[in-house]
């Protein structure tokens, strides 16, 4: 399970392919993180949790 920001999605896609893990689940969140407050980071984490839950259970989000 990997979480990455959308700015790095192409990189993640290439990595999955060349490492033979094309089906690896990756949750994408919005870039960047650096300007966000702690509260906003927490909200972002909460928002991605349902996606992670689906990915863990093998259900395509």
């Amino acid at each position, binding site marked *: 399970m990997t979480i990455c920001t959308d*700015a*790095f999605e192409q*990189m993640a896609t*290439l990595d999955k392919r*060349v490492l033979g893990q094309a089906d690896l689940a990756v949750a994408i969140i919005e870039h960047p993180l650096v300007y966000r407050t702690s509260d906003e980071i927490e909200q972002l984490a909460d928002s991605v949790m349902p996606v992670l839950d689906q990915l863990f259970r093998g259900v395509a989000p």
Partner: protein
Amino acid sequence: MSLVEAPDDLSELNEWVVEQRWSDGLPIVPPTRERVDEMLQGTSWPADTVIGLVPPRNAEATVDKIAANAVMAGCTPSAMPILIAAVQAMLEPQVNLYGAQATTHPCAVMVMVTGPVARAAGVHGGAGLFGPGFPANATIGRAVRLIQQNLGGAWPGETDRATQGTPAKFTFCFGENEEESPWDPYRVQRGFASDESTVTVVAAEGPHNLNDHVSSDARGVLFTFAQTMATIGTNNAYCTDADLVLVMCPEHAKVVADAGFTPADVRQYLYERARIPYREWKLGGMYGMLDQPRHLDAADDDYPVAILETPDDIHLVIGGGPGRHSAWIPTIGVGRAAVRLIAEPDGTPVRA
């Protein structure tokens, strides 16, 4: 290696190779089968030898493909032994080429070549060594970049994630000014024989100026170096499991050597003095991103934070011509240098 049909017209061809993402944006020499075969005459390595996989795409770096990129970059066959050693070196795990290719940091693969093979190929270490005018420097560095791009898949904004990049990504290759060095050549300092030739690579920023026009004593020169290197705006200030490169100009080196300093003394001095007060170190840079060394937990504001783990993390080379400008080359911080003997397939040194 497969062949493709390409436009005959040179202008059209160069537009086409950019569209294919096989170029760095500068015109290339078309890598026809004939030209690649001619390039292969510069090495005894069989064309189908796989030197390694180039991340992040992990395409095979065969000698044939290295030769094709060498043709595109404008190299002569004398570059081939250097390029093979450079690829061997950059694929060594400590270099962290994957990280160098994919990082947001502005690093290029620095290639430093010394010894008889470098001289025979025309690699220049004298005046203006980092700049234009020296075909071997320009084309060998460019070929290494094209290999990173065409085999490793590093494409800016996508899989090369550099925020701004660096002009050093076009080409970053230089030699050593052995003739004006007061000390043993770099490769000898690193344990190689004088008649052997080596390639050193590290993922590095472009050179930063170390300007000291006034010091007539070693400590003055070295204090300028240390003060310039001790800055929070480099990865090295926070990522100390790393090497960095110091290219001393002959005039600075003479002042320092005349005072009795050896290369080891220079490294030791800089290790002790290139430090950042904790009060400044914690104001920005990468503070808080990494686990800081345990001893800093008890540091007061005046504590001098080292940018190196050991004095040996400095790679000291003599380069340049008249004048009093040296350079230090900060690095990615999460990778080290690799030094490779320029060798035949059986491991014996290539003789110029």
